């Protein structure tokens, strides 16, 4: 009964009409299959992860299923280790640089492609290739191109700047990190470009024509028409992009594959390495929980600021 009044209240508020044939339990039956599966493979694992993060789970006792309770030790170990703060900082730098270049290049290319231009459909297909290629293949290909002797990049560098210009991309962690950033910028531009292009095409042409009659300059049109109208498209894409970049394992994993130090890792790739190369499952679970909290606070701050603007 209570359920029903709540529903009615909601309908009045939102003004939706109820589906004619809906009975009290219909939504439940339709939701049931995915609900059951998601409970088992998403919800339960999440709780399980919190549970393991307070336990000592290593390769030795993994199969036994008996994991001793160690309280906050995993968390203390992480939060007292300078490695965590260095990696966190590196992750923030990684995310900021990547998202910045994805959006600026993506928007820039979208604006160019939104003009009347013969041959632009071919250009669009060529520009979308980095998104179409499976990520790990893209990353391995770049890894080959960063090879110190036979990689295309160093060959080009030495051709233009002499034999000393070759850069040890894969052996020096600082350069590996830069190599990973270049690879990931390459991978991520097409998504932003296509999103911006979709947004640009939905802006009515009349706005620009009106601005033209008022004698507005190109920059004024961009600042006063394009950007504000594109905002509802760019903002969610930027948030998604930020989260995806923050969580991007494969590029870092492939580019730094075989490296001995952790000096080019970001948080998620560090979790992955600690769990599946060093078999420190409890520790990794705790680190995962910390990452989860960081992402949750990011997205809730974002949602709140969105609501304030509305």
């Amino acid at each position, binding site marked *: 009964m209570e359920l029903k009044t709540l529903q009615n209240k909601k309908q009045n508020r939102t003004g939706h009409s109820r589906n004619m044939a809906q009975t009290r339990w219909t939504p439940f039956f339709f939701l049931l299959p*995915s609900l059951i*599966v998601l409970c088992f493979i998403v919800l339960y694992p999440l709780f399980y992860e919190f549970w393991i993060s307070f336990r000592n789970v290593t390769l030795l006792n993994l199969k036994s299923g008996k994991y001793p309770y160690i309280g906050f030790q995993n968390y203390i170990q992480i939060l007292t280790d300078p490695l965590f703060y260095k990696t966190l900082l590196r992750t923030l730098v990684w995310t900021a640089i990547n998202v910045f270049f994805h959006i600026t290049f993506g928007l820039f290319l979208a604006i160019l492609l939104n003009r009347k231009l013969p041959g632009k459909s071919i250009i669009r297909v060529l520009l979308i290739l980095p998104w179409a290629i499976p990520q*790990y293949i893209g990353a391995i290909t770049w890894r080959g191109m960063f090879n110190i002797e036979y990689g295309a990049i160093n060959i080009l560098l030495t051709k233009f700047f002499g034999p000393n210009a070759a850069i040890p991309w894969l052996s020096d962690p600082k350069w590996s990190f830069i190599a990973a950033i270049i690879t990931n910028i390459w991978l991520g531009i097409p998504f932003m470009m296509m999103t911006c292009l979709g947004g640009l095409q939905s802006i009515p042409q009349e706005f620009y024509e009106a601005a033209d009659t008022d004698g507005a300059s190109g920059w004024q049109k961009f600042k006063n028409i394009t950007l504000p109208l594109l905002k509802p498209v760019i903002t969610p894409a930027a948030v998604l992009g930020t989260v995806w970049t923050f969580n991007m394992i494969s590029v870092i994993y492939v580019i730094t594959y075989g490296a001995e130090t952790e000096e080019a890792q970001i948080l998620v790739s560090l979790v992955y390495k600690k769990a599946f190369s060093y078999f420190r499952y409890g520790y990794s679970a705790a680190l995962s929980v910390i990452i989860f909290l960081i992402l949750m606070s990011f997205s809730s701050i974002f949602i709140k600021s969105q609501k304030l603007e509305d």
Partner: protein
Amino acid sequence: MRSERFEKGDSVLKIILIYITLGIFCAISVYPVLNILSISLRPASTVFSTSLKIIPDNATFDNYINAFLKYDLSKWLLNSLIISSLSAFFGVILSVTAGYAFSRFEFLGKKVGLSMLLVTQMFPATMTLLPLYIMLIHYRLSNSFLGLVIVYISTTIPFNIWILKGYFDTIPKSLEESAYVDGANITISFYKITLPLAAPAIALSALFSFMGAWSEYIVARVIITASDKLTLPIGLTNMMGQFTTDWGIYSAAALITAVPVMIIFICLSKYLVGGLTLGSVKG
């Protein structure tokens, strides 16, 4: 003539500059693909060369043949095909009714449910991978196709529900309502009327689930270690040794893997962008 094919008021210089800029970006975006193409065509003796030619001297298809002869490429292809098909099938079957419920019904927790589905897209892969991995070991499902499919659909189901919900929203309710007047119940009208109309969206989400599984490496590497169960991405990446990589064969195999997916993706990309932005703007 010019005024019809280009923007009004653009000078020739501006048009040339635009083409040059786009040309540079196209070159950067295409070059890595041409690079693997070039390496895959090189004869074994000159795989390591400092030449930048796209079509190498003495180009051959040996690497493509050797990829099947020297490595288990056909086995990997088959395994990936099975796993990707299963993920696509279950990923869609399990999300289609939920997508319909989120589009058509009013119920308690609808908004919260929808945003929870979005939140799952924010998890890093390791977030559920680690506990699922331990669970799979417990239930002796590691190294099995079923185990891998379980991890894959845990990420595709929420995404598919969103895409399908968005598409159901565009199908007019009046069709179903007239069926109710004719005495059909909700299940019949869903299967007979709405579902056939949603076929394009269903095909699309199945394809995207398929391609996601086809190109996934980070999860597969952890779950599958037995050599007879390797999927394409693991097999391919195993070719990449720490010190030496058989670049010629690797490149050929990479192109065999990537080209079909790339073609499908380019044909479908405009739907994906539409679905994503539409969904998030509305949400």
